[in-house]
């Protein structure tokens, strides 16, 4: 990606169905955010102020999943207007926790929550950005952290291919010298199948990883399922672990369906 040296690269931050937490990876940078604003030109970043949702940009970050008929048109327009499109966070990369409705009858759910469901316009499924347009890079995590986003922007400014760490949380535990919570204490941990990037936050607090960074590469979910069973988890318990933050990612989705099918 060549960066026009004569002017700062234009950056947009778009939001779809989400909790806004991934945009905080930028807004929570503290004073660094002001330094960053010297390097790039945020032409659209509604939470921070600038609003130009139809601007042509060098780099677009997209948070959130596609969940309404309007979203479909909007994401296509963003793709057309963006030289590089980067999906950030679990909603944008796997459909997010709200993709749980993909397993159920969303229309029924609407009727159970809203007295007048006919006024609620929602697609039957919540889907990742890559289901609809070409995505140049994905930053996984619920939420992504400032290091991931700043690291990406840094590489972008240097014209360097971004790093993509699809290794497992287990490797981060090893790097930190953390004793394995599953081996040493029998806690059912998703770390062996979950993508690195958080820095093993949960095991660092002595608890189980719950998979918020999505599936790692070559995730051996069968083996982990067998391990969970040996720790005494029921098929439903196991299925719920996969059907969590990144439930609609193919790897976790298949693991959940498989676990549910193993009722004795």
């Amino acid at each position, binding site marked *: 990606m060549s960066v026009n040296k004569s002017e700062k690269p234009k950056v947009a931050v778009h939001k779809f169905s989400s909790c806004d937490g991934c945009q905080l990876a930028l807004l929570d940078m503290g004073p660094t955010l002001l330094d960053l604003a010297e390097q790039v030109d945020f032409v659209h970043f509604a939470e921070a102020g600038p609003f130009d949702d139809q601007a042509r940009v060098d780099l677009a970050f997209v948070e959130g999943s596609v969940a309404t008929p309007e979203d479909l048109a909007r994401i296509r327009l963003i793709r057309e207007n963006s030289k590089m499109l980067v999906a950030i966070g679990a909603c944008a990369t796997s459909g997010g926790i709200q993709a749980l409705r993909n397993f159920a009858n969303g229309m029924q759910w609407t009727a159970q929550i809203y007295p007048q469901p006919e*006024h609620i316009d929602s697609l039957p499924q919540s889907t990742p950005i890559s*289901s609809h347009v070409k995505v140049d890079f994905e930053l996984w995590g619920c939420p992504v952290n400032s290091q991931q986003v700043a690291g990406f922007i840094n590489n972008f400014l240097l014209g360097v291919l971004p790093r993509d760490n699809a290794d497992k949380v287990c490797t981060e535990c090893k790097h930190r010298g953390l004793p394995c919570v599953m081996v040493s204490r029998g806690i059912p941990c998703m770390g062996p199948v979950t993508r690195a990037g958080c820095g093993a936050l949960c095991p660092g607090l002595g608890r189980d990883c719950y998979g918020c960074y999505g599936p790692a590469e070559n995730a051996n979910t069968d083996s982990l399922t067998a391990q969970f069973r040996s720790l005494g988890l029921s098929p439903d318990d196991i299925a719920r672990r996969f059907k969590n933050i990144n439930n609609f990612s193919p790897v976790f989705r298949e693991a959940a369906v498989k676990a549910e099918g193993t009722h004795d």
Partner: protein
Amino acid sequence: MTEQRKTLTLKVPVLTRVEGEGALDLRIKDGNIEELRLRIFEPPRFFEKFLEGRHYSEVPDIVARICGICPVAYQMTAVQALEKLFGVEVSPWARDMRRVFYCGEWLQSHALHIHLLAAPDFFGCNSAIELARIHPDVVRRGLRLQELGNEIMALFGARSVHPVGLRVGGFHHAPALSQVAHLRQKLLDAIPEAEKLVRWTAGIPIPADSQPFVSVALRHDSDYAIETGFIDASDGLHVDAPEYDTHFAEYQQPYSTALFSAYHQQPYLVGPLARLNLSHNRLPENIRKLIAENALVFPNSNVFTSMAARAVEILFAIQEAAQLLENYQLPDSPNVPVEPRAGIAFGATEAPRGLLWHRYEVDEAGLIRNARIVPPTSQNQARIEEDLRLSLLNFGLNNSDDALRLHCEKVIRNYDPCISCATHFLRVNVVRTSSQTISERNGWGGVPFRCTPFPLAGEGWGGVNAAPESASALPPPSLPRPAGEERFRKIRIVGIGAPSDDDQIGWRVVDILKTRLPPEVEFIKLDRPGSALIPLLETSSHVILIDAMQGGGQPGDIRHFSKHEWEIYQQGLSTHGLGVFDALMLARELDCQPESLDLYGIEIGTAQPGELPSEAVLSAVEELADRIASNWRQAKN
């Protein structure tokens, strides 16, 4: 068409969490407000349904995802509701630390709101970035306070967005003494900063705009209520969380996906101003004194006081956290055992934006049967509409469209409806017509495709679902290898480096070669690629890799390894440890090597990260680029 007969449509695209994206529609006709609607159209996310069938222990991680700005509020309300039902009494240590944890969220959220969202309005700025040009010290101070709030949350939750430390029964982990001491010092140092912030916000002129409304907030016997207390209203209501339903009711408006909420059929206010209106006399003496010195008065019926109210709560949160951490000791255990019990759980706490209420029905196995969550923004929604009506009349409908728009933005932002109305933008569609119909709104759905798509750069970075025609793109490791002979035709020159230190020599060589070699060569700069080199190698016919090395030679030495030479080279090849070497070995074992592979290393000697490259190294960069370019020309001939 006279000014009096205009039909105005104001639209604000707002971005937020559960209540979400919204718009303001305003129609003025014949000098009267004919219609005023705060429409929220964030797609419903069905959290209450996801919770059904979940184990109680999973609830804190799930409800956090409702809001990235105030996850602690959702987690705290849920765990406290469940603990109450289960008859679990958390330790005094956990009770205090939860209050500190919650103070962190107030601090973070309020500092974000004041500096990034609300204040720019009052200085004629469109964003905090613009405000920072006029008042750099103020904005930097605000961002430091926000950072401090995040640090408090991360102390207990390992991260500030969707923290992972809270559980039913207490915390997963107790922070170390040294970490707490360090943070406490920062809090003490921040107190004078927060005092300055209170003075600064109190000095910002606000419109005179008093309105009658009922304030609703938790109130505690002795403390300023955050995580516990009775639900009180300024008209005298005093009830516990389970009785909420008797006095408050949710209803739907066809134009909004967020449910509205009413107190005895009336709109009401929740949030910092409502809290101060009800509990200002629970604040510590020094804060009350500061309030009085700065001519701030509570209770206050002007919602524009909300920004100053947030500043007061920032000071309170910092002081409170510092005090609770004063005699910090490690607990025997950060949590107590929990046995689930069937029944109905109720919880209420004060989220940064106001009262948050939860209700869970739980079975004997501890699984959630159903859930109901009433967030603060949906409670404020009717009040915002009412406020806009009154405030616009007070402001004067004959003001220009721009002035009306800005005024509406300011009013909406007083409520900090999540981060949303934060957006510094209210799109105005002025429709001057005598027709009674509201003009068609230019919503998302109607966005015309009028931009000509420009082609993606040929040097793209591949893509997650890259279309097959983008053959020049680098396939990420997860993609299957391209079929056919196509994959053998690429010639790639790859510079390897790292942005953090001055390990960018490989990239420099690539930058120079880019200008000298023909376009059929693909130039790639990689940041410590590790195994990601492999797919790149296997899809190329010829590859030249350039990296810095520390092999014990003189700085500026250039070493060349052909495909066969590097195989016998054992170590010390790269500043990136064994990464490149390992990747090459693996590529060989996997039979993923290109036809030809040349590896160039430039010796950087004993240079430390961050040091600028020496003259010798820089001239080696030029020399190597010359060498590669001339080899290329020779090979071509």
